[in-house]
């Protein structure tokens, strides 16, 4: 069964289940979905917002997918994103450079911050075989509390204790003509960073020797080692790249969609990235498309709530159901196989 068909079926099942939930709670599913889509795509401003909402998801999805492809389960995209965003914010608040240069340094800082945050679990995995699921989750909280203490200590806003100072306009990814093009949407350069990242990762993973090696380690560590691939180096490098991508998500989120860094908030995009990667069958372009889909769901949801009587909690459940089906798309494949086998068996009996 083709992988993308699987994803489509997952989305379809999710939407049907969501429709059932709406119907069961006495709401009109057709109307609900109509406003959900409208909320995401009705006018240029909403389209821009949808793209901007999708931007961090593209990058965290890419981060998780890249790790998956190389045999690693990077569950720490949230922490890497937070720390990457923190590094970019720190640079944006401290350095005074011409805008283009400043943004470039911020993006680099974000990438490297996220990458370093992921290298630690990568190193522990390569050297001591510590499972990355455990260590990346622990790194999430390390990032959370690091930001929690450093922001109020060094980058505190004037009035609020709970967020950093606002980034100066020059240090933000917003550009007036871009906002104008989308009629005042908060879309920003982050989206282009995400598109570039998708292309680079697609090239890296499909067309280069390095990508081949990283994938080989993912398929079979021992066979790769036997084949002469530096397995340990590959694991660390995979985590480096994966973390860097999540770090870019942090740049897009905290210097693009938001203008300051709040403490005490773990970015939800980190975990959503896992669902995005699964739905996007771990392929860069697939991730891009599934992140856009999530973007529509997230930014259309509010309009659906506003126009219908569907309470926000039901809307959350509907999104969760869709994610759930996406994440369990492997079950759909099993179901398909079972059906096929049964049909074959029936046929045989018939003969």
């Amino acid at each position: 069964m083709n992988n993308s068909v699987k994803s489509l079926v997952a989305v379809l099942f999710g939407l049907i289940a969501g429709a059932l939930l709406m119907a069961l709670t006495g709401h009109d599913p057709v109307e609900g979905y109509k406003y959900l889509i409208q909320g995401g795509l009705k006018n240029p401003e909403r389209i821009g917002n949808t793209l901007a909402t999708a931007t961090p998801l593209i990058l965290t999805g890419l981060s998780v997918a890249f790790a998956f492809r190389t045999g690693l389960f990077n569950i720490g995209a949230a922490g890497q994103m937070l720390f990457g965003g923190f590094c970019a914010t720190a640079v944006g608040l401290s350095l005074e450079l011409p805008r283009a240069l400043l943004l470039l340094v911020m993006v680099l800082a974000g990438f490297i911050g996220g990458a370093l945050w992921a290298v630690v679990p990568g190193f522990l995995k390569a050297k001591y075989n510590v499972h990355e699921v455990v260590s990346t989750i622990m790194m999430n909280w390390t990032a959370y509390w690091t930001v929690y203490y450093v922001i109020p200590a060094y980058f505190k806003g004037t009035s609020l204790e709970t967020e950093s100072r606002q980034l100066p306009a020059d240090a933000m990814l917003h550009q007036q003509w871009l906002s104008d093009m989308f009629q005042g949407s908060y879309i920003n350069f982050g989206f282009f960073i995400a598109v570039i990242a998708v292309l680079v990762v697609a090239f890296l993973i499909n067309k280069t020797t390095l990508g081949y090696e990283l994938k080989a380690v993912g398929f079979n560590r021992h066979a790769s080692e036997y084949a002469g691939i530096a397995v340990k180096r590959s694991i660390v490098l995979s985590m480096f790249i994966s973390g860097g991508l999540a770090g870019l998500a942090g740049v897009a989120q905290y210097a693009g969609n938001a203008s300051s860094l709040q403490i005490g908030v773990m970015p939800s995009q980190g975990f959503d990235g896992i669902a995005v990667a699964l739905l996007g069958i771990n392929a860069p372009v697939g991730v891009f498309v599934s992140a856009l889909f999530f973007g529509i769901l997230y930014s259309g949801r509010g309009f659906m709530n506003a126009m219908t009587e569907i309470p926000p909690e039901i809307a959350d459940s509907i999104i969760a159901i869709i994610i759930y089906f996406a994440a369990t798309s492997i079950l759909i494949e099993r179901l398909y196989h079972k059906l096929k086998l049964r049909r074959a068996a029936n046929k045989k009996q018939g003969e």
Partner: protein
Amino acid sequence: MKKGVLSLISLALSVTMLAGCGSKPASEPSGGAGGETPKANFMVGMVTDAGTIDDKSFNQGTYEGIKKANEDFKMKYKYLKPAGQTEADYSKEITNLYDAGYKFIVTPGFKFETAVFKAQDKYTDAKFVIIDGTPNSGEPDAPPVVKENTVSIYFAEQESGFLAGVATALHVKDGQAGFIGGLEIPPVQKFNWGFQQGVAYANENLGTKLVINKENVVYQGSFDDVAAGSQLAAQMYDRGVNVIFAAAGGVGVGAINEAKTRVQNGSDVWVVGVDVDQYQDGVYEGDKSVILTSAVKKIDHAAYDMIKAEMEGKFPGGQTLTLDATNDGIGLPENNPNLSDDVLKQVDEVFNKIKGGEIKVSAEQGDLIK
């Protein structure tokens, strides 16, 4: 690449399929309908802050005020829950409400300051109420800008904390008190400082001996970590604290849980609730509760009053209001089953003294703890 293209097509298909379902365009709410005569098809919208609508605090208080207004004025009302806590998330929900025709928008919490700052200019025919904050651009030292279509409302938390402190001291008489806060932000700090002043006042004037030690004044750092709340409360009770004032949302719920367990095991400990009457949250058996009393901010009044004012055409646009003892914006709950009549009487006297200006409660830290 093929996979990607396929998933693109599949997505496009599913989207068009859905879009096809709804052929009729949504009836667009007409632009400048708002203005000065809002009575007909008046619609009140609310965007929730971090946390759920039943958070026993800001969101719930505001929503209850709106619901109460609905009983009297019969309007359409609705709340939206943003996906995250950034300005973009908040602005998006404000736009959603506006586009759907909700042009009286209540936003509970200081986190809405920048979102409302932009929205009050973008949607000049809508009206905004922001509770516990004033609109500002978010830039360093940005002045508050309350436009003609916006009202900003503050509470005198220190007075509410003061009353709770007096009541607590009068009830416990001799022992130790502690404080657990959520984030170290002005409203929570003011509760803390007011509480300490209240305890000190009772010690000096009403013959109590309630001590607050430095190590028992803690800001947990979030409003949602229930487990951490239990842990902090456990540590304090172990150090001999008899009563904890918990101004910390979900963290406070943890403290309440810990107190329940301890009371059921026979110890005599209390929690003082915050924002709303938390008596019901502390019930452990029948109608017995570990909540001694609560330092209440009448958030529901704020929402109700603003809607009422708008209905009567008296919306105080452009103003920054403070709800305190003089306008009954703060106080203790109406019913305090755990406090004796004698205590309540004395607290009432103190309340009237605050009202009359005889007692001044400071909103500054001064030499208080944290």
